[in-house]
């Protein structure tokens, strides 16, 4: 009871006397935890929803049969239905249709329709069976009836009995909303109709997207799957539900990992701030701890006391952080959706699920980091000899150990070595590790660097007999370099991360802009539908478009999704006219490509994106097979191009080659070059009066560029948010360390005032100190941040997203940030000092510490 009383006295005394610093430390811990926790919540919400949605779509089936292309011949269905071992086979046709009423939204304007056979589906995927109005059970089979999930109803503002126009290609079909899908997954936007009606209305006669299989009891799934795979032609894929989940997982993994690492970086910034405030506050109290040692507190009791105080701080800060993180996640999900604008999960609207385990994990993390921050100085304070420690100013001795630069230099060297290592499991682990080491090394090097610089400056200025104030400021920085270095740490870390992110984002954005200019050379692009799988213009329609006056040149483009590996997201195939003599005219090529003479006549040339090289090992000159036709056909990789649009891979080929191989003549897009003097408006007006004119959407490259950059900016919203928070945390760090230092120097200021230094002079001295220190921190932060951005641009991004980019440094923005930071720091130093100088001068001198 006695011990608890003492502990409480000390805690109360300390916290009452330093409210501001305690609050700053709390905010730092809370912000760090909040950022990490909110991004974790957002990720799990999105991925959980997505896999739950996938599961409810595939229902109770054991296996699914698909083709490498979006659809296949329905003749496979009777074969599978009567197959030995199969209990029920349920055919499904999946179609993405455009919703005319929603066309003004460039991202969210399609609806997924599932065509099902009600009698089969009711046993395998009961969630997908619609609920008709009472007494109209036959609506389930009616050819104009469609059933909407609650989320779709809400999105379309539709109710039972409404008529709903839908568009596929150039054709518009109006269906009747016959009921709902009550058991559809919450937030999932889908529609269901009879499969025969879907095939007929949307020109998919005789084809299916997949067949769900329920096996007879006692049939071994794996064995049956293997046998069926052998039996079916190569273009069919047999998948288990697990494969689907892995695919979802793969699709968002790189993205999630990057977000998580950003969250970790934020957490690291927060942790460092907590660390430096804890170190400084423990140092400040070093003489007090020495006195307690004199009075008879043992080393362990001192250590325990410090740890007790900081764990309380850690618990409070982390709890605050959890709450804040939850609020942040809820807001972000509300505004941007589950992928924070990344575009992966646009079909679903996730809700937050709070997992107690994760919350506890983050709580432990927050407390741990806080404890760690005070453990080191606490240990030092407990071990110090009391008599020397009692003297004020003894803290610097405690810090001299930090002066050896070797651990820091070893960290930096290791970071450089790690950048040379390849990715592990398609993730740039070593790259991230190198970033962490670079940061830690940079911070650890600060004390010896600061000592070197400021004592050098001090010597030079002393010789020059500079003004008393400059000398005082420099003397302080030169003789207490370790404390200066710790104060600097916060500025360094936050500015460094800002620089790194700013350079990375700028490089990426400018690379994307260049890329867009390169791949969208035409004046106008015409599409019938946003989704790429859809069949678009028939040959007749193509001729009509080409015959429109004012057009100088026209390229038709056919794009579709193909599956090369069932565990990976689909690959985009784009067939279009490509300059045979120099593909670089059509595509943003990266390096050497085969010239036309090097392409053997029997092989069809394809040009692949960088992701194809990393993911599927499609090197230049390699012979590959593509699932485009049933006849065997060789393709050869003729070159590699840069693609920021599709990180899961894209392939381009000549449209003529594609049409020869598939004998499919429809295309989904046309690129138009206009004759001189003809405006885009004239041509668009001419095209709109065509028979199918009202189904066309027009895109001008400028618009596309704007939309692409908008999507891009949205997906980097998180990065910007983190950048802002990092700046805030950094400034908080500056404020906390300067005010801590100023409080410790009350006596010094009092003495200076006594010997006739005016207040104004002290303010100027403080501003000079703050400015010098921050300037140095910013310089080092810039160098370190530059290094980190190089790692992000040339190691982390190519390894996780499979694309390369050119380096662009946004000097203007960086200089503005540096100046703002410098001013903010000088101002904080001043404000913190004001508080100290304004106090009672007499008292200040008297007080020993």
């Amino acid at each position, binding site marked *: 009871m*006695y*011990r608890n*009383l*003492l502990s409480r*006295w*000390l805690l*109360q*005394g*300390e916290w*009452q*006397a330093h409210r501001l610093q305690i609050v700053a430390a709390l905010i730092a811990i809370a912000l760090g935890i909040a950022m990490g926790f909110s991004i974790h919540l957002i990720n799990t919400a999105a991925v959980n929803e997505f896999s739950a949605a996938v599961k409810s779509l595939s229902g109770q089936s054991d296996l699914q049969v698909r083709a490498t292309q979006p659809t296949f011949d329905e003749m496979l269905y009777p074969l599978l239905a009567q197959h030995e071992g199969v209990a029920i086979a349920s055919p499904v046709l999946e179609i993405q249709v455009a919703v005319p009423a929603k066309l003004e939204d460039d991202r969210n304007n399609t609806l997924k329709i599932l065509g099902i056979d009600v009698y089969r589906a009711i046993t395998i995927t009961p969630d997908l069976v619609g609920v008709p109005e009472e007494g109209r059970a036959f609506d389930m089979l009616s050819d104009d009836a469609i059933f909407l999930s609650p989320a779709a109803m809400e999105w379309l503002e539709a109710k039972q009995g409404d008529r709903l126009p839908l568009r596929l290609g150039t054709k518009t079909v109006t269906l009747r909303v016959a009921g709902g899908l009550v058991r559809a997954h919450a937030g999932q936007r889908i529609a269901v109709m009879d499969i025969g009606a879907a095939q007929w209305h949307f020109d998919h006669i005789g084809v299916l997207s997949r067949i769900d299989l329920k096996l007879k009891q006692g049939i071994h799934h794996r064995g049956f799957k293997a046998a069926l795979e052998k039996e079916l032609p190569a273009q069919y894929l047999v998948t288990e539900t697990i494969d689907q989940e892995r695919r979802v997982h793969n699709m968002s993994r790189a993205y999630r990992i990057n977000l998580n690492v950003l969250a970790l970086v934020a957490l690291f910034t927060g942790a460092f701030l907590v660390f430096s405030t804890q170190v400084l506050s423990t140092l400040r109290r070093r*003489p*007090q701890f020495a*006195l*307690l*040692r*004199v*009075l*008879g*507190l*043992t*080393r*362990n009791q001192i250590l325990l006391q410090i740890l007790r105080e900081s764990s309380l701080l850690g618990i409070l800060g982390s709890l605050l952080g959890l709450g804040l993180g939850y609020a942040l996640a809820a807001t972000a999900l509300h505004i941007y959706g589950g992928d924070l604008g990344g575009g992966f999960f646009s079909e679903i609207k996730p809700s937050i699920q709070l997992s107690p385990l994760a919350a506890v994990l983050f709580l432990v993390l927050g407390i741990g980091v806080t404890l760690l921050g005070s453990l080191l100085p606490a240990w030092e304070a407990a071990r110090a*000899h*009391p*008599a*020397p420690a*009692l003297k004020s100013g003894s803290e610097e001795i405690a810090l001299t150990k930090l002066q050896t630069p070797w651990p820091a230099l070893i960290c930096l060297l290791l970071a450089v070595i790690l950048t040379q290592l390849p990715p592990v499991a398609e993730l740039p682990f070593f790259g991230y590790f190198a970033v962490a080491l670079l940061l830690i090394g940079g911070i650890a090097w600060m004390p010896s660097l600061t000592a070197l610089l400021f004592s050098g400056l001090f010597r030079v200025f002393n010789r020059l007999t500079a003004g008393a104030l400059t000398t005082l400021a420099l003397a302080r920085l030169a003789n207490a370099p370790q404390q200066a270095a710790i104060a600097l740490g916060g500025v360094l870390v936050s500015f460094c991360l800002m620089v790194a992110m700013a350079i990375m984002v700028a490089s990426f954005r400018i690379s994307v802009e260049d890329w867009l200019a390169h791949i969208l050379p035409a004046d106008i692009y015409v599409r019938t539908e946003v989704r790429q799988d859809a069949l678009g213009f028939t040959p007749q329609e193509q001729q009509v478009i080409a015959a429109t006056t004012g057009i100088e040149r026209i390229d038709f483009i056919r794009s579709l999704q193909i599956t090369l590996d069932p565990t990976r997201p689909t690959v985009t195939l784009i067939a279009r006219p490509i300059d045979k003599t120099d593909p670089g005219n059509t595509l943003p090529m990266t390096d050497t490509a085969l010239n036309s003479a090097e392409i053997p006549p029997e092989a069809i040339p394809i040009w692949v994106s960088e992701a194809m090289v990393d993911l599927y090992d499609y090197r230049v000159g390699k012979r590959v097979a593509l699932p485009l036709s049933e006849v065997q056909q060789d393709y050869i990789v003729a070159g590699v191009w840069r693609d920021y649009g599709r990180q899961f891979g894209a392939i381009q080929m000549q449209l003529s080659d594609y049409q020869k191989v598939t004998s499919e003549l429809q295309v989904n897009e046309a690129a138009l070059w206009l004759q001189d003097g003809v405006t885009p408006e004239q041509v668009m007006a001419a095209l709109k009066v065509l028979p199918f004119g009202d189904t066309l959407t027009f895109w001008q490259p400028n618009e596309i560029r704007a939309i692409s950059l908008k999507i891009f900016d949205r997906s980097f919203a998180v990065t910007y948010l983190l950048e802002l928070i990092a700046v805030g945390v950094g400034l908080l760090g500056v404020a906390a360390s300067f005010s801590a230092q100023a409080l410790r120097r009350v006596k010094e200021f009092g003495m200076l005032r006594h010997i006739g230094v005016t207040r104004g002079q002290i303010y100027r001295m403080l501003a000079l100190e703050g400015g010098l220190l921050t300037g140095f921190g910013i310089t080092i932060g810039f160098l370190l941040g530059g290094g980190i951005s190089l790692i992000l641009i040339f190691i982390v991004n190519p390894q996780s997203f499979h694309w390369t980019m050119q380096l662009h440094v946004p000097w203007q923005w960086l200089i503005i940030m540096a100046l703002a930071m410098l001013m903010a720091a000088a101002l904080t130093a001043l404000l913190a000092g004001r508080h100290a100088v304004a106090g009672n001068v007499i*008292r200040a001198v*008297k*007080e*020993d*510490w």
Partner: protein
Amino acid sequence: MKNTPTLELCGISKAYANGRQVLSDLSYTLAAGEYVAIMGESGVGKSTLLNLIAGLDVPDAGEIWVDGVELSARDDDAATSLRRRHFGFIFQAFHVLPHLTLLQNVALPLLLNHLPLDRAKQMLSAVGLQGREQDFPRQLSGGELQRVAIARALVHRPRLILADEPTGNLDPDTAQEILQLMRAEIKANDAAGIIVTHSQAAAATADSILLLTKAGLHPLNPARSHVS
């Protein structure tokens, strides 16, 4: 051990990190129950000597025996508990905890030794600070702070009191009052004491006076003759 600790210094030397040799080969034995004053010019090493005796700093050479045990033979926890239970300190620079009230500051030794806390208030009254128990150190004058430090040093009835300039900041009348209080407490508890001072009057309250010079510790007798 109930008896007053005996203190024996054998060939103590101490130099600071900057190479300054402060004490060299100093020996002295303090008998049980003895109360001595140490005088000497500024910077000669009086505070350093007290710190060494208290185990707050370590000598470069020589041995310090307290209660028949050499100081460096005790581990840190043993030395700490010896200090906690049996030593009382008064520093030249007060050293009170700034964020605790006066009462809390004085009660610290009682708390650490699990003794009843009532004596803290009595001690504050004894040094003339009754009614100011809930004040904070920043609200006190230098002399008042010194009195708090003295109250704290005596509150747990230590057996060895080490005082460094305890009355340097006090007016002569108050100083005499406090010094008499110290002496009374020391004698009442059958304790030993070492008081470092520059004041003849203060030194005169001790049983004997020692002079610290570069050559070592020497008795300066009789004390009273110097005053006249």
